[in-house]
């Protein structure tokens, strides 16, 4: 995948050639399972995603760290 820049729910997602992910400028560690072609992160310990952009969007939406808290 080439570089991706996307604004998702108010958070800037940047992916550089599948090996660097930043959210609002913060580098996010992730693991790529080559065998199963899945991506996962310590942010979301129970789930695995089929692409890095799906993982990035899920972290933004679910982690509570990159979006404004809702009441």
């Amino acid at each position, binding site marked *: 995948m080439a570089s991706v820049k996307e604004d998702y729910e108010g958070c800037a997602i940047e992916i550089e050639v599948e090996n660097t992910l930043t959210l609002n400028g913060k580098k996010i560690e992730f693991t790529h399972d080559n*065998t199963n072609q899945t991506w996962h992160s*310590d942010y979301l*310990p*129970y*789930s695995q995603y089929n692409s890095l952009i799906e993982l990035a969007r*899920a972290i933004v939406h679910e*982690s*509570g760290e990159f979006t404004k*808290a809702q009441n």
Partner: protein
Amino acid sequence: MAIRKDANTLTSSERAEFVAAVLEIKRLGIYDQFVLRHARANMTAIHRCPAFLPWHRRFIYDFEIELQRASGNPNLGLPYWNWPDGGETASLWDDDLLGGNGDTNGVVRTGPFRSGRWTIVNRNGQANGALRREMRQNASSLPTISEITGVVAQTPYDTAPWDASASGFRNQLEGFIGANLHNRGHMWVGGSMLPMTSPNDPVFFMHHCMVDKIWHDWQVAHPSQGYQPTGNAPFGQNLTDPMDSTPTPNNRPIDVLDSSSLGIEYQQSGEIIVPPIATPQLLPLDESFINASINIPGEVIRFQIDAPEFASYRLETSGNSDTVMSLFGPNDARALVTVNDDGGENLNSRIVQSLSAGSYILEIRLYNPNSLGSFSISGQPIGTSAIPTLAVNGVQTNAAISFSNESDLYRFTVTNPGAHNIETEGQTDTFISLYGPNSQTALLDNDDDSGSGLNSRLRWNLPNGEYFVRVRHYSPVSTGSYSIRVNR
């Protein structure tokens, strides 16, 4: 004694007591400390690893203690979320217990933990808005009874490489392979149940209570299966390692293996089927073949082997199935001797081992717990082994228990009848067994700590004859050197 019940079966007063206790420890700041204990733990030290189950058993046990203190009821038990009956319309999601699903933005607006009454915290401990649930958006269904039953049938507890790719019961229950029970529950609720701060949602504790109940049911169903690994896995994962982010004392897996010793009792919902323990079939040690087949995913077939004397034995499967065999004994179906995967032809397993006389249990499963297949099994002695001789009133013999579950066998001859002392010396916690006369299987006595320190000593009036002494470490996972002598 904490009585843990299906959350759907709680009475109105039990629901009120549970909710009041949760709200009280939230008010005191205790609840959020549990969120942070989970959120700040090393993720891969408590998930995707063998310690996943003991870590969370201890975690929800500590939480339960806090609820008991807050309520003043020492018998208050965490309710468990019985997934097969726990869908969106189940009564545990009613307004007098957990409240229901979130609104279009995921914000929970019903029940005691609704927006305005309950605030979640982020991993820095800062308030982070309302509790969120997005039921069924990340997983469409909850585990069924048959899926749970299938996972309870899996053995062993865990296998190398001890991570999210490992085969075994733990990983199927956790959810990275197979039916996916635990992970699916988190994903089915969604919202606040997805990140490492997932204990923000009180259903986390009911969810992990169900996970713990399944582990408990598995332990009851497979009494010969223990926690794995016992050694050589990453620190924090072995049976006697301290676990990450867990207060001392009793912070090792071995400390929490027995639910009843923690004062926990599960009230069965009566629906989850625990597979019966099959009576082992006798495997004669005469080279004859017994045909067997795995007809249910995860099934384990058990054989009994009676070794008549100390000797080297070969046990092996044949056929096209990828078998794994585990040998337990002697005379103790919980004492693992060894495990073998592919030591035989092609993907068959083979154990070649010197065994003391006695009864053993051989368990055979398929490497892939989702596979079915048939195999043949045979066993035979392949040569007698020299048993070291102890000279009565001679010099001591120095030896060592060098690996888990090892035992050493010795012989000595009595030619002058009378009182004999058989004893060990050293820093190792030994356990000895005496057999005879003229028999490797006629047990006379056992001893653990009658010698100096943690050493063993037996004193017996022995008639003429040949006797045998077996020495092992008291702990099946420990090693150490010792010396042994026989004096008249």
